[in-house]
């Protein structure tokens, strides 16, 4: 158990830096809200940032266990397919993708395929 003073100082530092990162840009952009640059960025940024977050979380999943790359890719495909064909119901798509991933991990499908492939070679 770490020193209580260390913990309190750490929590305070994290809180202040975190809040500043979230608050300062609003103060800075407030005056620029009408500028062409800010309006363009507001249109251009969301889809790109979302795609980067998706790629980053996928990479994190794979990095946690590289053997699961195939399962993760399959689960992403299921998520996207359900989302496009079942009327963009996010809860359903996220649920289907996650259940797919959990089941693939549980039954270790990727390892079975890899085992079968190496057996053939």
């Amino acid at each position: 158990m770490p020193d209580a003073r260390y913990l309190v100082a750490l929590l305070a530092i994290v809180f202040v830096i975190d809040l500043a990162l979230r608050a300062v840009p609003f103060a800075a952009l407030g005056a620029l809200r009408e500028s062409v640059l800010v309006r363009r960025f507001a249109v251009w940024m969301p889809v790109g940032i979302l795609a980067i977050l998706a790629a980053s979380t996928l990479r994190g999943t794979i990095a946690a266990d590289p053997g699961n790359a195939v399962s993760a890719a399959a689960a992403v495909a299921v998520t996207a397919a359900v989302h496009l064909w079942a009327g963009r119901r996010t809860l359903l798509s996220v649920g289907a993708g996650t259940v797919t991933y959990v089941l693939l991990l549980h039954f270790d499908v990727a390892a079975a395929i890899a085992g079968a492939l190496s057996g053939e070679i």
Partner: protein
Amino acid sequence: MGVEVRAAEPEAAPEAVVSRRGEIAAGLRASLSAGLGMFPLGIAFGMLVVQAGLPWWVAPALSFTAYAGSLELLLVSMIVTAVPLATVALTTFLVNFRHVFYAFSFPLHLVRHRLAKAYSVYALTDEAYAITAASRERWSPWRLVSMQVALQLYWVGGGVAGTALASLMPGPIEGLEFALCALFVTLTIDAARTRAQIPSLLLAGLSFTVAILVAPDAALFAALVLFVAMLSVRHALGARRSREATDA
């Protein structure tokens, strides 16, 4: 006091038309799909805190002060090894620097009440930003803030539940954390509704690819900085093109 209240009335009037209860319900509905990822991930985080040998209250304490999943997971291991506070500060700054970019399109300007506005800024997480960025719905102050409160409840609740579960279960259910990845995949699809979004999507893909190659340990941070740099170039090129068009 009375003068201040009267002065604020004309501004507040149009919003009074919207049903408050309906807006809160809509905010809760908007939060549900993210909750599906945040609650299990919160449980995993809570279990990690207990398994690392820290007291249970560290989980909610981090979720109220840091309130950013990936950073909190990092902080647990940093607390255990008692790294210097300067390192904690730098890590917090770098890992959460991405939030700087969210101000460009998060609909904070809708929220008028000072406390609600402060909370909305404080609770501007990846998930809260993503939900507003991907949705076509009309946001109102009540809808936005109730969505954010719900998200924090899922996360804090999941964390506390995880600390309780840690003593009962041998280990977490593997793979539940994938829900967060699935959420961002669906939100990306929702945001990419028109062909006009394709250039941004391609630039984002390029940014992330370059980031993995150049800075594999800080890929998220590097990708966002690269993406913003590329958008700046795109903006500059567009400005020059439109100037040439008017000259001709």
